[in-house]
């Protein structure tokens, strides 16, 4: 019987310093996995190493090796660390908790930034590396494949992946809802402060056709423009540049609005009423509020953007709840599938062995009896078969109906295996599978 464990640390249990010391590069990971396999030939292992976490997933025989302490020592030796340096930062999970943990990790529910998709790629990469190193098998193959599928499900069926968590990213989201193509658009920044810089950094990611910076201080304007491959323009010609710009970020220190309705009406006429996105990040405001009333002008100030951020965060808590529901459901299904996968061969062998013993005893007693007619012999065979079936019925039913939350399934199976001296080494389906296709729980579900 196989036991599933994970040992690791992440951004909530270890400092960046420690995480940096424990991180594995791809070659180091390959070396570590092959080393682990050489030392513990029966185990399966996947090593997930990112900037935020290092986790070692292992499947081993119930009373086999490596034990937890052996894994801790292995991690320390692999990275040249002493146990006291990191042991207290480690967490260990087993059986069902491992499945829940992996599904949550892959779905970014355990990430520093909720909804980030990078972790899914890293989980896949870790799985591929383990496959290359030959350290995956009938337990970790289906587990990691299912984890990938669950993460995709979470991303497509919840709004967790809608990454709007800051004022700048909200502004980008608005821009995407107004414009389709950015390569023919012009972004104008009025002001060259910190916030303007942050906004420009995000806007530059949209790869606009032109990026202009307008500031009273030409040196600052020039420095900021050069940072993002744009050009500085003089403040005196603001109206002209406003007419040429599709996205305007304004963040000056002016105490009076620098963009008034009358100014912008003339700007819109010059623009032939093409839509314009105005982002006013200045406090007090740079853009008069009534500018928003002009047709095809979409004006957002700091309050609007912050409210969108807040609304997004409250929406996210609902998304997290929905994502957790998906993870819980998938964990239940995976556990059920795994139980069936492991229990079937064991129960089969239990029946086969019991019937073989009964048959042996029956043959022995028939040999001793005289005048047993063929009809009597059939009756005796029926009798022994029924006795065996009835005797096994209750324990088998108890085994099938055992509560996986009450005790680890592998413990039940191990107990049965030991009590009846069963040997399943060659009978677990997919034991020799290398691609995991036989063990895909999604295939079982279909």
């Amino acid at each position, binding site marked *: 019987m196989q036991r599933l464990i994970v040992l690791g640390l992440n951004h909530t249990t270890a400092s960046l310093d420690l995480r940096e010391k424990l991180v594995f590069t791809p070659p180091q990971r390959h070396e570590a996995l092959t080393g682990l396999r050489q030392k513990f030939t029966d185990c399966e292992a996947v090593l997930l190493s990112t900037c935020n976490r290092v986790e070692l997933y292992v499947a081993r025989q119930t009373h086999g090796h490596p034990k937890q302490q052996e894994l801790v020592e292995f991690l320390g030796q692999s990275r040249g660390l002493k146990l006291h340096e990191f042991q207290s930062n480690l967490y260990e999970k087993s059986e069902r908790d491992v499945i829940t943990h992996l599904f949550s990790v892959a779905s970014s529910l355990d990430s520093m930034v909720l909804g980030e998709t990078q972790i899914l790629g890293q989980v896949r990469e870790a799985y591929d590396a383990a496959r290359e190193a030959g350290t995956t098998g009938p337990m970790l193959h289906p587990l990691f494949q299912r984890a990938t599928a669950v993460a995709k499900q979470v991303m497509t069926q919840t709004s967790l992946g809608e990454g709007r968590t800051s004022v700048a990213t909200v502004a980008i989201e608005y821009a995407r809802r107004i414009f389709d193509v950015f390569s023919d658009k012009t972004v104008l920044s009025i002001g060259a402060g910190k916030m303007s810089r942050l906004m420009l950094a995000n806007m530059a990611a949209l790869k606009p056709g032109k990026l202009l910076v307008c500031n009273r201080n030409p040196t600052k304007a020039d420095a900021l423009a050069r940072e993002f491959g744009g050009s500085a323009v003089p403040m005196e010609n603001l109206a002209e540049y406003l007419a040429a710009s599709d996205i305007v970020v304004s963040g000056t220190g002016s105490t009076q609005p620098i963009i008034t309705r009358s100014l912008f009406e003339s700007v819109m006429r010059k623009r032939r009423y093409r839509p314009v996105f105005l982002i006013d990040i200045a406090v007090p405001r740079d853009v008069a509020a009534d500018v928003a009333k002009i047709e095809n002008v979409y004006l957002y100030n700091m309050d609007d953007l912050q409210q969108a951020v807040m609304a*997004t965060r409250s929406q996210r808590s609902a998304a997290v709840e929905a994502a957790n529901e998906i993870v819980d459901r998938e964990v239940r299904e995976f556990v059920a599938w795994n139980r069936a996968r492991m229990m079937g061969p064991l129960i089969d062998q239990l029946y086969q062995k019991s019937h073989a013993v009964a048959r042996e005893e029956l043959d022995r007693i028939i040999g001793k009896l005289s005048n047993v007619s063929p009809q009597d012999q059939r009756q005796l065979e029926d009798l022994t078969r029924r006795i065996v079936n009835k005797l096994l019925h209750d324990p088998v039913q108890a085994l099938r109906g055992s509560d996986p939350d009450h005790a680890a399934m592998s413990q039940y199976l191990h107990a049965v295996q030991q009590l009846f001296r069963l040997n399943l080494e060659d009978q677990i389906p997919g034991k020799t599978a290398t691609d995991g296709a036989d063990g895909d729980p999604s295939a079982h579900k279909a």
Partner: protein
Amino acid sequence: MTAPMPPNAGQFALLWGAVALLLIGGGISLARLWKPNNTLRLTAKSMAYFAICLALSALIWHAWNRRSWLPIEDNFEALLALAVALVGFTLYVQRARPIPGLDWFLMPIAVLMLAAAGLFGEIKPGAYQPNELWRLAHRMSTFGGVAAFGVAAGVGTMYLIASAKLRRKNLVGASPMGSLERLENLADWALSFGFALLTVGIVTGLIEILERGSKTELGPHWMTSPKVILAFTVWVVYAIALHTPITPAVRGRKSAMLSIVGFVLIFATMLAVLYMPGGR
């Protein structure tokens, strides 16, 4: 000229089957507003494909019975062909470069056309006899124009909703409907295409009237017939909606509203053609 032949019960059954599938698919697609789900999306999409198959089967069956393959010879097949073209266009856009929610706005127009085919097809079968080049050009261009204006109206509605959401500064909630720029481009394209076809339709209709004088179905007072008045009004509405290069103030929301008004009028024109005295 082919003999008028009303659609039979089997063809009607196929048509109403397509309507039912589009309605169920639409309901399933709308359910995604509350529960975003890929299975729902695929189910709705499959329903639309099945609906197209049913409608096409009805169209082909009807054409086979008539031994004529130009689908503009009676109300039934003309409206059916329009609806198929509209559903096909929607599925094509959603496959090539999807606009979230486009089907919510275009499929109801297709359903409307199919329902009209079911109702008017039975009432006035064999309405058209395209035995002359002008008449043929007239029918094809006006029907094509209606389909294009249907797209423009649907996309225009989407534009108005998307724009209102942006003005309310509402980022949270249902999925976005594509950017305003994309919607405007698609509506402009459909309007230009529809306007060109409508212009050809009006000119060829006028040539037909001038050639045949009072012998046309419109009679001697053709200039005051509802069909001619409505058709001209629709043309003016679309001309205004499309003349943004001259007066750019009519763009965005105003243009979207005009697209909707134009489509309502063109639908009224169709009703006039089918029902009102001297409408044809």
